[in-house]
């Protein structure tokens, strides 16, 4: 067993990664405490910062499977659920800021924005789609849904990532640099899945009437 592998399976590593994922909360608080740009419009700052960290965590979540294969570190899977749940944690903060602070719970006003402003329509859709993934992240739900169904449901993360990038791109005024960077990252990570899918498909013997059901290891080990 390699040293890296033993680090990956240590419970302390999990604790460390858990705390690391909380660090952005500290960065945000520190900016609000001493950065005058953040203090000028703290509501907008909080919306933008939590939004950025949401998409960061979505990208990290999507990167885990390719990194497992490329780096030959299957144990990286141990962190995927946690990182994914952190994506939901930050999107929940993002959404809550918009609801509670930006709009002071003015539901009709917000609903009008969801329908009328396309960047909000897209962002709101992504948030709604993330909720069931967070809810069904437990082992109990994997058993209840069955690995295959669970896996299908969780492929929604591909849609969510694309919606997230569009949400960002439609929000900025003119400088698309950052949305383009996220777009390229998400594009590469999704292209990897597409590549794997094509390779798997072409591996199957041509002309076989009924495809063998794919061997399920555990739901977690797949794409």
């Amino acid at each position, binding site marked *: 067993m390699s040293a890296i592998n033993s680090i990956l399976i240590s419970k302390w590593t999990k604790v460390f990664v858990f705390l690391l994922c909380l660090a952005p909360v500290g960065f945000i608080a520190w900016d609000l*405490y*001493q*950065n*005058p*740009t953040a*203090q*000028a*419009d*703290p*509501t*907008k700052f909080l919306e933008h910062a939590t939004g950025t960290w949401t998409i960061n965590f979505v990208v990290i979540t999507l990167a885990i499977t390719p990194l497992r294969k490329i780096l030959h570190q299957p144990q990286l899977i141990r962190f995927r659920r946690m990182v994914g749940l952190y994506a939901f944690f930050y999107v929940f903060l993002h959404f809550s800021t918009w609801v*509670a*602070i930006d709009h*002071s*719970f*003015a539901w009709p006003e917000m609903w009008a*924005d969801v329908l009328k*402003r*396309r*960047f909000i329509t897209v962002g709101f859709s992504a948030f709604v789609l993330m909720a069931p993934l967070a809810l069904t992240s437990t082992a109990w739900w994997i058993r209840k849904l069955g690995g295959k169904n669970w896996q299908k449901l969780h492929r929604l993360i591909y849609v969510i990532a694309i919606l997230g990038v569009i949400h960002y791109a*439609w*929000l*900025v*005024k*003119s*400088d*698309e*640099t950052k949305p383009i960077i996220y777009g390229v990252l998400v594009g590469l990570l999704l292209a990897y899945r597409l590549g794997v899918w094509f390779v798997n498909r072409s591996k199957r013997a041509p002309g076989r009437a009924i495809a063998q059901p794919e061997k399920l290891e555990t739901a977690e080990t797949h794409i």
Partner: protein
Amino acid sequence: MLIKPGQDLTYADVTPKSVYQGRRKFLAGMLAAAGAAAAWKGLDALAPESVEASNTRPLTGLTKWPYSTTEAETPEKIVTSYNNYYEFGTDKSDPANNAQNFNTSNWSVSVGGEVAKPRTFSLDDLMKAAPLEERIYRHRCVEGWSIVVPWIGYPLSNIAKIVQPTPKAKYVAFQSYYDQKQMPRGPFAGIQLPYLEGLRLDEFMNPLALLTFGMYGETLPNQDGAPVRVVLPWKYGFKSAKALVKITFVKDQPPTSWNLESSVEYGFYSNVNPNVDHPRWSQKTERRLGGGFFSPRIPTQMFNGYGDQVASMYNGMDLRKDF
């Protein structure tokens, strides 16, 4: 530094009842926040000293304009830390960080086009061309935030008196400084640079249109448009071009950078108008910077509250079409 509420609160700062009542819903949250804030005060010693703009100097001998708003001035620290100045980067903090070494020495502004007496002014000559006044204006950004700033300058119309526009002059074009060596973020701005802006001649002649050299008693900091800029309080902030190098009187409506970027989002006039939304967001309300969390959105006023001085210029125009 924690943001403290302005001392000179006016009626405009009174929280509307509906908002106040809505806020009761998370009173508990506010109490928790107050506890956290108290804890933060202990961190004061840890906060780094922020970079102060050192490139400004005091301006003296100013007259106080009698029509200044009595609303609380936005803290200077905020006006110098939260800027849209895409030549220096598109994040709000970029101009304060990247404009510190911007060289504004040997500045000149050339004024020409359809005029009898074209002239290139040195900055010094330009500052002495008319008496400087301090004017406290509301300033509303197209993004939905606003500030209250004590600007120092004089009406643009003084320039017309000197150069004498001919009858052919119907519009005025402004050009801002652009040098990629000093502004390496320029190519990523997503808008055409050098920055172009413009006005109709009557707008240029309006007494509110200010050629601006300073704010808060001093010359302009680089991130706020040093050494000379335009301030047009009834229009969205992007109309108020910074770091001015060229004023040209022209026959036809001149191209403007934001209008070239997206003509459906940024009209040539771009008067503050709560009834015409930006396609991607509402313009009905605005957030006054510096109010901290829970500072309510305030209603945006037609022409940013300067209708008495400017509305007559737009009589007979459809402001939904000519937004």
